[in-house]
């Protein structure tokens, strides 16, 4: 159970924080189609989200073509170039947020530019464990 917020302030017993992963699925080509200004604005929004005191993690991934998929079959490691799923479904990045409710997580997810550029943001609560 978290007792301090991401910005260090103590949590009162009434505030229960949960951690949510926001998985970003981009529509292929959606960012490339933006003007320079629109792209700059989008990057500011991505940055604002990671600067939010509720953000406790995140990363942007290189495109799906850079992926290697790994399986182990009968003790043998098998690797394949390319992503697990076809490019339409590839995760482009993620954020981790502390939030008091799913509604709060939805509000954050709706600010991720990918969500309005034809992609989607999948919110999933994370399994809490001792850190």
């Amino acid at each position, binding site marked *: 159970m978290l007792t301090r917020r991401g910005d260090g302030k103590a949590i009162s017993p009434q505030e229960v924080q949960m951690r949510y992963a926001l998985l970003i699925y981009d529509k292929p080509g959606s960012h490339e189609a933006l003007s320079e200004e629109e792209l700059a604005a989008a990057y500011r929004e991505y940055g604002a989200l990671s600067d939010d005191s509720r953000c406790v*993690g995140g990363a942007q991934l290189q495109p799906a073509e850079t992926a290697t998929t790994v*399986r*182990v079959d009968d003790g043998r490691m098998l690797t394949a170039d390319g992503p697990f799923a076809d490019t339409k479904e590839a995760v482009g990045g993620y954020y*981790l947020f502390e939030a008091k409710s799913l509604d709060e997580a939805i509000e954050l997810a709706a600010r991720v530019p990918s969500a309005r550029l034809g992609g989607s943001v999948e919110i999933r609560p994370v399994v809490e464990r001792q850190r």
Partner: protein
Amino acid sequence: MKYAVLIYAKQGAVESLSDVEQERVFDEYLALTRERAVLDSEQLQPVQTATAVRVKDGRALTTDGPFADTKEVFAGFYVIEVDTQEQAIQFAARVPACRMGGSVEVRPLAAGWGA
């Protein structure tokens, strides 16, 4: 170099194990999180708890998961820092999902936030 290790677990693979075997598998996942190379790691709650968010005309539209009936589900991830891609792949191969009918995707992080 930093890599994301994305875990796609075979649906039902862990659940079909005995309690003792499940413990052992979770212990393996946990042990991996303690490796020096690991910068971040999260286990995601099941896909039934997912909410997808899209924004159309300024309005947020939400859909409750799961969104498709797939054999493998995105179950969690590690973010690791290693010297070579080979080392990233070696780490990935130790993730239990790999040998339990699932697969793990290794992808370098982009420069910029998070990296």
